[in-house]
């Protein structure tokens, strides 16, 4: 993992001291809230419905044990004993007091963390594949380039006041596990005709009130030129992006209104100016950063076949967990383990301080001190020896973390919704809880198979409902929470935006509505091997509409 150098360390220390002074000036009345608000937002401090919310950056979703332990400490000492992992792979605390924030920041600095650029119209945390550096299908570990992009985008003087926030995601494998086509810039590792690895660049994707799938702007950009090319894109956006209307200010609207050809022309013209200049990434620097992400000292062991069926007979819960929560590793004898933060009846993405401590211990003892946060609000131990799986599982069981549901119907994304968020129109978490209770039978979940439900409490789509195989959007109508259901969204390389099926449902009726969709799928699938999303693509939305609203 990347380690701070003296400049990084000095900078975050200075920023914390600066913010402590700003807090003191606010408390003394020297500055008012209008003056203070942009300062606190620059440091990830929001004011939500019930209290302040402090959002801490987890760059490209990578953590060390020491850092997770620190987050557990902050949860225990300054909050209410838990944290909420987000779809931007950050963590949020929902109950801190204003005067404690500078102390929390100091603690974060001790473990090379901060909360800068987790809010505001700037380039936000860069997200990537939770299996980066471990996945068997990976062309390249994207994290060194993600780190370089992080350094480039941190406090970029030209890009601190963009028309709107700006999100970058990258993937180093053909399977898109980072939803790159729903980001302002999406980067996918590809190989050119000469066999060199570089980046395919997508632009103008996004969710929110106007969901858009990104457009391909350039098929190949070499590592050397990537910063200059990204700078060109953001510069064009900064110049032409709309500032007259917040709802039309994202780059997706610019790309949509101007057209990808015009934007490409502008970006290429800008790139021609910047290419070969100060933003050229020297190979030596890329190599230097890459050393921070060197593969751990894996033991040389033979590839080990896991006999899931046998394990299921011996211990069904363990067998189910093995079947769902492991991901193939490039190193023989190792796997990546998904730790589900979606227990039945739980709040998606929440972990208690004790759970965080337990997971930190597991990472230290079984995963070379490494952890990942997924954009689907789970955690990952990236490098676990197959022979250690039982011990890891037993520890997860002891800590209420052994739910074997990765990718199943109960592995839902849900935003904080109206229970916490000042932007929300409807609650998300109670709905996720009710749906997970409805489908809590593990065998039933397995019979249904891969199915992603994503829930947002407002049109801003923090719960990624547009790309849920089943998406749920909460709205408020005449003082009542109503939920619109869409089907057919997909955040992977087969990117698709879900279709709204019809009028909304009150909360109590949503779990039954989901059940009718699921039963329709099961009745009409070609076989148990045809997942929900494939069946939807084959069948279209008519049978699902009928399931919800009757024959039209």
């Amino acid at each position: 993992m990347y380690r701070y150098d003296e400049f990084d360390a000095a900078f975050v220390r200075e920023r914390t001291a600066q913010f402590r002074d700003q807090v003191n000036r606010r408390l003394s009345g020297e500055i008012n809230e209008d003056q203070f608000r942009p300062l606190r937002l620059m440091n990830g401090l929001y004011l939500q419905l019930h209290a302040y919310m402090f959002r801490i950056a987890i760059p490209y979703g990578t953590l060390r044990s020491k850092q997770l332990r620190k987050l557990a400490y902050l949860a225990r000492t300054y909050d209410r004993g838990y944290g909420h992992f987000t779809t931007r792979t950050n963590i949020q605390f929902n109950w801190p007091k204003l005067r404690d924030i500078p102390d929390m920041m100091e603690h974060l600095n001790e473990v090379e963390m901060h909360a800068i650029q987790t809010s505001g119209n700037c380039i936000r945390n860069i997200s990537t594949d939770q299996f980066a550096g471990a996945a068997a299908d990976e062309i390249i570990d994207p994290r060194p380039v993600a780190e370089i992009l992080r350094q480039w985008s941190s406090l970029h003087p030209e890009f601190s006041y963009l028309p709107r926030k700006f999100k970058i995601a990258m993937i180093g494998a053909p399977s898109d596990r980072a939803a790159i086509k729903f980001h302002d810039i999406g980067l996918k590792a590809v190989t050119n005709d000469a066999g060199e690895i570089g980046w395919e660049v997508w632009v103008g994707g996004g969710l929110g009130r106007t969901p858009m799938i990104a457009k391909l702007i350039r098929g190949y950009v070499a590592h050397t030129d990537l910063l200059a090319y990204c700078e060109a894109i953001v510069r064009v956006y900064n110049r032409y992006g709309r500032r007259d209307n917040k709802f039309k200010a994202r780059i997706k609207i610019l790309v949509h209104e101007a057209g990808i050809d015009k934007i490409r022309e502008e970006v290429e013209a800008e790139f021609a100016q910047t290419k070969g200049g100060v933003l050229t990434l020297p190979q030596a620097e890329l190599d230097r950063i890459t050393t921070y992400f060197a593969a751990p000292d894996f033991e040389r062991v033979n590839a080990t076949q896991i006999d899931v069926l046998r394990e299921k007979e011996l211990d069904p819960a363990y067998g189910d967990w093995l079947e769902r929560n492991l991901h193939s590793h490039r190193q023989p004898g190792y796997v990546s383990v998904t730790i589900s933060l979606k227990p039945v009846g739980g709040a998606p993405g929440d972990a208690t301080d004790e759970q965080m401590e337990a997971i930190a211990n597991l990472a230290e003892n079984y995963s070379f001190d490494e952890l990942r946060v997924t954009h689907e609000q789970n955690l990952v131990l990236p490098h676990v020896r197959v022979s250690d799986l039982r011990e890891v599982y037993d520890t997860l069981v002891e800590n209420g973390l052994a739910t074997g549901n990765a990718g199943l119907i109960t592995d839902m994304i849900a935003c904080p919704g109206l229970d916490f968020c000042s932007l929300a129109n409807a609650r998300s978490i109670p709905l996720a809880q009710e749906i997970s209770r409805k489908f809590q039978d593990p065998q039933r979940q397995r019979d249904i198979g891969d199915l992603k439900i994503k829930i947002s409490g407002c049109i801003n789509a923090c719960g990624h409902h547009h790309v849920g195989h089943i998406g749920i959007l909460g709205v408020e109508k005449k003082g009542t929470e109503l939920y619109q259901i869409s089907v057919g969204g997909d955040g992977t390389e087969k990117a698709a935006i879900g279709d709204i099926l019809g009028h909304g449902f009150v909360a109590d009726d949503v779990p039954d509505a989901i059940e009718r969709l699921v039963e329709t799928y099961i009745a009409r699938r070609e076989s148990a091997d045809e997942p929900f999303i494939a069946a939807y693509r084959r069948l279209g939305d008519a049978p699902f509409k009928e399931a919800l609203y009757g024959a039209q």
Partner: protein
Amino acid sequence: MEILTGNELMSGATVYLDRDGHWVEGLQQARVFLKEEAEARDAAIAATKKTMRINSLEIETVTLRDGVIHPDRIRERIRAEGPTAPRFDRQHLDKDGHVSI
């Protein structure tokens, strides 16, 4: 009918302006402004702004039923009681979090 609500500076806690000009935690202690009391309401808003201690100051419409205040918006009902899931107690004021106008 309307009430005034906001979030106290130190704790971020949800608070309401009561009849005595104190910003308090309890929704049921909130002063209810009738339509013809707009001037008093606006004076209270101005006085509150001068304290610089109440953020996100808002006018909320409510209904009185049997002397009980019911906010019209779901959002306000959740703000008054705390999150419904997971169920947490609402944020409370610190000792030095009391604000009056």
